[in-house]
């Protein structure tokens, strides 16, 4: 039905600030694309440019083969769900949903059919005569969704739609949005800073940083192979541990530990070592390195151990273990990791070196 193509899209403000820089992105039909990044990364600006609420400084935005750079938001055939819902306070739920259709001169009985259908889908049928202030947060959110759905637009745009809801409702709505999007098969762009939302909703995940695309891919691709230090630490919770290490001819050395192997393919010198908290295992014998537990966070299902390596220069890292493990503050633990789960990053460019972990072997290390 509808595809989007962004070519060389850039946004700069009068004061010279570059919010989005030379960005290319292809969005396929019926795809759910999630733009994720920290605040100020340009994700909202990008969404608003697609919506037509923000002018595109340069580049080309194509929806369904048509360049829409200079079209008004109302003419782009898009619908948007805002963070604070932006419902018209003086209109009933019904009128809130019907307003956009009326402006498009949709026949009355058609409006009625579309609104009642959408209301049923979102369980709003009972509330059609209420005003927004008589609704709860979750209900308002659903009305905002309904307002987007009734229009049957080419593209749905979501601007952090769940961040005003409480945690439980957020999870429910997340699932509902996912189901709805599947069912309607409408191309969608979703902006969030919440990486759990991003991972669960996305068909295609776009990680943005400082107005640049850091990486595009499926959530799992990005989780498994983060292209840069930024992506590695941004996706995944708790964040990936990054340790300083040194590449030597005979292997990779961090602290007092050495991973021997063939390191000829990468430059010698400093390197950043990435270890996900969930990939680290506590082992009784033959550990890769040792840590001391500094702080414990019990999450129920999991236990997060904040540890320091037992080196001359201790480095902090987090280990995730199962919730009922018997571990106390001050315990010394031996840790190990599967070599395939290990990432190496260039300390200067911050890019993933995609080093072939098969070249490393584990050596028996015996600690005193």
């Amino acid at each position, binding site marked *: 039905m509808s595809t989007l193509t962004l070519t060389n899209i850039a946004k700069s403000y009068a004061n010279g600030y570059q919010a989005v820089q030379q960005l290319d992105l292809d969005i396929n039909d019926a795809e759910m694309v999630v733009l994720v990044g920290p605040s100020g990364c340009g994700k909202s600006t990008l969404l608003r440019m697609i*919506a*037509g*609420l923000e002018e595109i400084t340069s580049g080309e935005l194509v929806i369904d083969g048509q360049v829409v750079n200079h079209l008004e938001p*109302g003419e782009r055939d898009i619908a948007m769900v*805002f963070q604070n819902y932006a419902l*018209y*306070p*003086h209109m009933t739920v019904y009128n809130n949903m019907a*307003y*956009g259709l009326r402006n498009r001169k949709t026949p009355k009985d058609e409006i009625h059919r579309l609104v009642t259908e959408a209301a049923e889908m979102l369980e709003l049928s009972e509330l059609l005569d209420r005003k927004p202030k008589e609704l709860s947060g979750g209900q308002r959110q659903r009305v905002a969704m309904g307002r987007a759905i009734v229009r049957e637009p080419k593209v749905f745009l979501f601007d952090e739609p769940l961040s005003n809801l409480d945690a439980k409702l957020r999870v429910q709505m997340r699932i509902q949005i996912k189901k709805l999007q599947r069912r309607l098969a409408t191309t969608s762009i979703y902006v969030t800073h919440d990486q759990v939302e991003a991972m669960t909703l996305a068909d295609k995940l776009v990680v943005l940083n400082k107005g640049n695309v850091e990486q595009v891919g499926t959530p799992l691709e990005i989780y498994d192979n983060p292209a840069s230090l930024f992506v590695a630490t941004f996706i995944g919770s708790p964040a990936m541990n990054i340790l300083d290490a040194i590449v030597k001819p005979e292997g990779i050395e961090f602290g007092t530990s050495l991973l021997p192997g063939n390191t000829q393919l990468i430059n010698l010198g400093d390197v950043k070592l990435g270890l996900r908290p969930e990939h680290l295992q506590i082992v009784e014998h033959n550990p890769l390195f040792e840590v001391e537990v500094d702080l414990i966070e019990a999450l129920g299902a999991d236990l997060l151990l904040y540890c320091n390596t037992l080196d001359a220069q201790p480095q902090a890292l987090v280990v995730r273990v199962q919730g009922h493990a018997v571990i106390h503050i001050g315990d010394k633990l031996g840790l190990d990791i599967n070599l395939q789960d290990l990432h190496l990053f260039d300390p200067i460019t911050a890019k993933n070196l995609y080093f072939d972990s098969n070249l490393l072997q584990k050596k028996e290390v015996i600690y005193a």
Partner: protein
Amino acid sequence: MVERRPLFKLFCHVILIFGILAIALPVWLALVATTHENNVFATGTPLWFGDLGLSVFWDLLSSDSSFNNSALPITHMLFNSFVMALTITLGKLSISILSAYAVVFFRFPGRMLAFWMIFFTLMLPVEVRIMPTFEVITNLNMLNSFSGLTIPLIASATATFLFRQFFLTIPQELIEAARIDGAGPIKFFFDILLPLSRTNIAALFVITFIYGWNQYLWPLLITTDAQYYTIVMGIKQMLGVVDGIVEWNKIMATTIIAMLPPVVVVIAMQKAFVKGLVDTEK
């Protein structure tokens, strides 16, 4: 504020009661005066009702101009006042809401300059600019006309400023949602902005209606033709009898009549008025 000291409470009540008395007493005296024969006033001001009842009111409203010593019957003066007050009110509201709309929601060169120029006129009320304004109105041949009576009073920085402050509180996202829903500037104004401003409009209606109704100096200057006398001017005229007796009971009755329309407006719009001043419905 939660105060639990009975003495302080008593003190507050005493102050308030004095305040109410100070305001209510003249009204009371006026009301009492309407029920007495005119010769009573020679000996002093009565404090309790006489035996005329409402007959003075009735005579005033039903008789012609000869009865009240002025050039125009009371009813005609009331009509003039109504036309003037309503024109000023509606003119003020529509012009100020439109200029506030332009200043808040559109980006055009000189926007802030325009706003500050409007704001600056706050410092030039009618009384200050009365001579130049009179000159302009004379040159435009608008003496002795309703347009001359009302137009110079319509421009209002206060109302523009109030609407601007209200418009600034409307979330940006609401405007964006309307744009995505395909509403242009005019549709947005009528479908969303105007309904949202309802309570503010009501509050301003009350304030400007009273302002327009109570105008005295400007009508006095601009009208020489008795056809355009307003009720507030009429009262003054009734005092100015040559060689005659000032008919206090009629004057007081006219005063009471002149007070009523603003009171009615306040009562009718009270709910919306209070809401407009204290409540934000968003």
